[in-house]
């Protein structure tokens, strides 16, 4: 799905948090969004889903395949969410419904959007579990009986089960250890490509960014300061913010690399 935001502005309680953001995601493209903490990345992601808290002012346009999301009624947005746009959250441990089993969580988007028979629902859920690398015996477990990695696999399965054309992943690996992070990113990328969907990927981790995205936007204090092909941008950032972020990320990666080696020795 193609997404274009133009002159997007987001204000909460009179404070302008996102300003004049122009961002494009082409059909089938994986796009990264980076920026320091508090720069407004999650706000942009939520705006695309109509998930901003009540009382938020959104200006400008968000165009999803020709549909205008800004100002859309919640009922119409709900019809898009889960079906046309899927979201993977940062912390599945607290966003998955603690009362639902894995099977029920994954079935939810299908139940909300399609009238399927019981068998068909079960089949689709099991197929999705397999694709997400979840063994079938987990189907009756509840989130608190899963590992962090398994929980995020459930989160990904929920986001993808109804075959949305756009996936928004807001730091989907931050809550995981580095080995699991890699597996989850690989899974997400392969599922998105397999489905031919597009993806907006928000992350602080530049190795993940290079791996998961082709194009990338840099956000600073609510404004886009730089954008370009991910590899080139990471190689030689043009903006000051970009440079700072890349430097910090390199240091972090070095430190973490050393830590991992020590751990294995």
């Amino acid at each position, binding site marked *: 799905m193609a997404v274009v935001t133009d002159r997007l502005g987001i204000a909460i309680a009179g404070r302008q948090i996102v300003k004049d953001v122009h961002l494009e995601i082409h059909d089938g493209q994986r796009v990264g969004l980076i920026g320091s903490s508090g720069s407004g990345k999650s706000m942009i992601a939520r705006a695309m*889903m109509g*998930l901003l808290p*009540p*009382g938020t002012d959104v200006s400008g346009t968000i165009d999803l395949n020709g549909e205008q999301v800004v100002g859309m009624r*919640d*009922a119409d*947005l*709900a*019809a898009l*969410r*889960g*079906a046309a746009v*899927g*979201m993977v*959250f940062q*912390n599945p441990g*607290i*966003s*998955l*419904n*603690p*009362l639902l089993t894995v099977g029920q969580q994954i079935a*939810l*988007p299908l139940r*909300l*959007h399609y009238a399927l028979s019981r068998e068909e629902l079960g089949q689709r859920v099991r197929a999705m579990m397999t694709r997400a690398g979840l063994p079938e015996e987990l189907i009756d477990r*509840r989130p*608190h*009986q899963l590992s962090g990695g398994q929980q995020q696999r459930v*989160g990904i399965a*929920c*986001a993808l089960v*109804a075959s949305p054309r756009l996936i928004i992943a807001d730091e989907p690996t931050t809550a995981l250890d580095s080995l699991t992070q890699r597996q989850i990113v690989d899974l997400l990328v392969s599922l998105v490509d397999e489905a031919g969907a597009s993806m907006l990927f928000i992350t602080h981790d530049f190795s993940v960014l290079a791996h998961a995205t082709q194009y990338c936007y840099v956000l600073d204090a609510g404004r886009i300061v730089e954008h370009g092909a991910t590899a080139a941008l990471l190689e030689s950032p043009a903006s000051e913010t970009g440079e700072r972020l890349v430097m910090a990320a390199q240091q972090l990666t070095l430190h973490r690399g050393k830590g991992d080696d020590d751990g294995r020795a």
Partner: protein
Amino acid sequence: MRYLLRRLALFVVALLVISLVVFLALRVLPGDIATIMAGLNASPERVAALRDQLGLDRPLSEQYGSWIAGLLHGDLGTTMLTGQSVAAVVATRARITFPLIILGLLVALAIGIPLGCAAVLARKARTRAFFQVLAVIGGAVPALWGGLLLILLFAKGSGILPILPATGFPRTGWHTPGQALLALVLPALTVGIIVGASIMRYTRSALQSVASTGTIEMAMACGMTRTDAVLRVGLRLAMPQLVSVVGLTFAEMVTGVMVIENLFALPGIGSGLVDDLGHRDLVAVQGELFLLAAFFLVIGLLVDLTHRALDPRLGANDD
């Protein structure tokens, strides 16, 4: 299962402690119980007879033992004034108090839960502020004041819109259920509105704490509207908390009912307790205090068990 046994054991221990406290509280009062109960102008013979009847000359442990033995058989002693069994008197009064508590609770839930949800769902800051003010006012009104206001508004004989009775209970009791129920409407509204304000505040904060975990957002991301997600996912997730809240507001409810029974001249447990204290009928008071405390303990037990049954995360690992 282990939890259930542990919780039941705790209940029994608490019951014993309460019985001891109630028993001792009336024994360590300054002065001689028999003298207090017999009244100022009683003859020494009357006092001696009373002391003998109450077994006050026996050692404390023996008195406590026989009181407990009686309790186990449902025997709370006899009232001083009429010689009826205390248990029978309490049972008669409970026929007013319990329906009043239940009606009040229904009113409170019917007011508190929808308003609490509405307060969370409100989009405009001004609407949210309005609900806030409503909750603060409702929570600040004392039962007596609220009852008087309702009497001024709706009571037959004195009200601006005189549609409901506000004095006493029909002599025929529950044999005329319509009249009996009507007599309880204003009192139940009074406690219900006040407790409803608390339930509204708790519902609002319980829903908000659920919302802050991201579960509601996730349900929305799957395709629910905000209203749907709050009502279908949020309320269910907040249910264990809400059950605890109802338990917590029960104390408020019962105190409210005690005051309200006196205001509306309803011969229930609350006004009965005040009467018995006035008559210095310590046997009856002792029994009534114990039953009241036991009632709270039972509610606490039920709340804890329900809370646990509603939340699969609890009990999954330690049973």
